[in-house]
């Protein structure tokens, strides 16, 4: 059986390895202020692989990897040599130009080489969930070598020299090319920037920043993987969002550090006023336009469905419930019909074309009927909201007032 642990072990290991190397480079990237350099280098590597295909090499073979690496090194040389301009044109602008030109050039090449588009995609759209041990093994070996050699090399080179820049972009380019193929561009960007940013927020020396980045990055990955399994969500996208939240939390913790008590009270007051403002605006919005989207009221009803009965009377509620039941019934009938047709493709007696056409038009009618029922539900709700708009608005404003002036109901806070 597929327990989560055996399923997510390899992705977790991959995350740990990727965080280990990217947090290190991320700190450098933040210092150099070149945050999008990974996207540009990955795109250049994809261009290299496409060119390899165009001149007749097998995709994903040694020659394709050599082309990708060669193009990446050339881009590294370009970035290093153009540093002298950066007083006039920021390095970030040069990186952006390299990115768009590499992406566009790859498109043009694909136009010339049928069956070429796939190679760009295979390089840029890794998926951390389905990473294989074979690839991961090579990637870990590469990260270990780069992680061991580059810091030693960097210490020997004059940081203001052309060579130092080239070493950085070349080492980073090799890492990014392999990691983007494993995890995809979005996730690699998150691995690169977020742990490093958390480290910089919470420490001053490079060593401490790196340790914090490693711990925060790995922990966030594990939490993200667990959420993606439990909530049945796409793993890469869940991880990227988890990193976004982690950075927010890290920022909050940083803001609250130090004189904790006073700041905490201030933050509490701020949050309370924010909530009061939200409720007040919602109250006015209901009065002004009761049939429009009411996100706050909708959210309350989703959490406490019985809140509806406060302003919708029993007959209208019954109408809406009936419509909901009909919609559910139509949905299950349509699903059964669809299932019968798709089963018949391989099992039992085949359904002739005429019957398939009839099924299609039945499904379309079901679709219309479901929409009709959903319209009824919405209409009942909107009418009730319109009828009680002033009462609803007043309730929201009262709640807002109570939140903003706690002394109205408490002697002291």
């Amino acid at each position, binding site marked *: 059986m597929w327990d989560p642990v055996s399923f997510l072990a390899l992705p977790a290991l991959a995350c740990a390895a990727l965080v280990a190397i990217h947090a290190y480079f991320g700190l450098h990237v933040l210092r150099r202020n070149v945050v999008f350099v990974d996207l540009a280098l990955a795109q250049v590597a994809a261009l290299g692989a496409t060119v390899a295909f165009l001149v007749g090499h097998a995709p994903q073979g040694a020659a394709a990897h050599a082309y990708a690496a060669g193009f990446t090194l050339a881009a590294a040389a370009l970035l290093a040599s153009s540093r002298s301009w950066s007083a006039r044109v920021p390095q970030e602008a040069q990186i952006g130009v390299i990115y768009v030109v590499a992406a566009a050039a790859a498109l043009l090449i694909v136009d010339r080489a*049928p*069956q070429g*588009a796939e190679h760009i995609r295979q390089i840029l759209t890794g998926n951390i969930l389905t990473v294989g041990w074979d690839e991961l093994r090579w990637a870990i070996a590469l990260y270990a070598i780069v992680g061991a050699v580059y810091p030693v090399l960097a210490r020997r080179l004059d940081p203001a020299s052309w060579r130092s820049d080239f070493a950085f972009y070349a080492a980073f380019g090799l890492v990014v090319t392999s990691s983007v193929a494993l995890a995809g561009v979005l996730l690699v960007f998150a691995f690169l920037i977020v742990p490093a940013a958390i480290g910089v927020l919470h420490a001053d020396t490079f060593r401490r920043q790196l340790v914090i980045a490693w711990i925060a990055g790995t922990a966030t990955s594990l939490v993200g993987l667990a959420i*993606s399994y439990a909530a049945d969500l796409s793993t890469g*996208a869940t991880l990227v969002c988890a990193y976004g939240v982690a950075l927010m939390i890290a920022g909050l913790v940083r803001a609250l550090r130090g004189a904790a008590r006073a700041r905490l009270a201030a933050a509490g007051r701020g949050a309370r006023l924010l909530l009061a403002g939200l409720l007040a605006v919602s109250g006015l919005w209901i009065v002004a336009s009761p049939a429009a989207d009411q996100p706050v009221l909708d959210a309350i009803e989703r959490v406490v469905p019985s809140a509806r009965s406060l302003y919708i009377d029993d007959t209208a509620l019954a109408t809406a419930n009936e419509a909901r039941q009909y919609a559910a019934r139509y949905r299950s009938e349509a699903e059964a019909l*669809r299932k019968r047709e*798709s089963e018949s493709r391989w099992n039992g007696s085949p359904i002739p074309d005429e019957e398939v056409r009839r099924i299609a038009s039945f499904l379309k009618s079901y679709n219309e009927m*479901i*929409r009709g029922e959903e319209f009824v539900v919405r209409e009942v709700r909107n009418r009730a909201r319109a009828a009680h708009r002033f009462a609803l608005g007043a309730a929201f404003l009262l709640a807002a007032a109570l939140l903003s002036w706690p002394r109205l109901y408490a002697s002291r806070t």
Partner: protein
Amino acid sequence: MVASTAELESLVLAVGGDGIAASHLIPAGQDGETFQPRAQDVARISEANVVVRVGVDYDLWLDALLRQSGNAAVERGGPGYVDASTYVALLDVRAGGVGPGDGHAHGRGNPHYWLDPANAEMITGAILEALARVDPAHAKRYEANRTRFLGELEAKVREWTRLLEHAPPLMAYHDTWPYLARRFRLRFVGIVETRPGVAASPAHLAQLVAAGKEAGVKAIVREPWEPARDADFIAQRCGATVVVLASGVGAVPQARDYVSLIDYDVQALARVGSR
């Protein structure tokens, strides 16, 4: 004549014969659902007498091109406008908000209908109508071309059906194959990418692996541009192999025209079955 895909172009040529010039807009071997028209495409359409489209929301970008070209003959409703899906019995028409795991984002039906060789009859029928409208002098010849082509195709379909008689259960990366499946009685146990462009969740992958093992899936089908990694992952765990199929002419070098396209796919699947 301009067709939106190379496979439709091939069918246009089968009906039109040597007397007509045809081209296609989506470069061979590219995913038609992510196509972006080029500057010369407008010129191609403004010079065309007949435009053949896939329809079923597959080539929505064509509407803007037709408007831009200002060629009234090929605009919607014009004598040279052909929606090849007109007479086809569409599969997987959506009935609002059905649960997860149902494959395609196309509410109007799955657009990959040309992969059922029996649908070539409907597609070439629509093409023939337009050709006869635009060029009535040669209508007889077009009709003869079509009849000959369909006759040859029918013989092929018999051969293909025999080859795929004992095809094993399959799984697909994207829901491209329902028409092929229906014609040759293939069983697709599951679809990896249930929402276009959204990678599968861990739970969905786990469920696919379990279903694949239980059904004895022998091959995971993907197109050349679909991620190799995900297909390999499931194949490894189900004890299946990965088979790269072409959904369009030019997606693999062997698929030179409509017949060799279907032939390539059938042969590839038959090899899995004989293993």
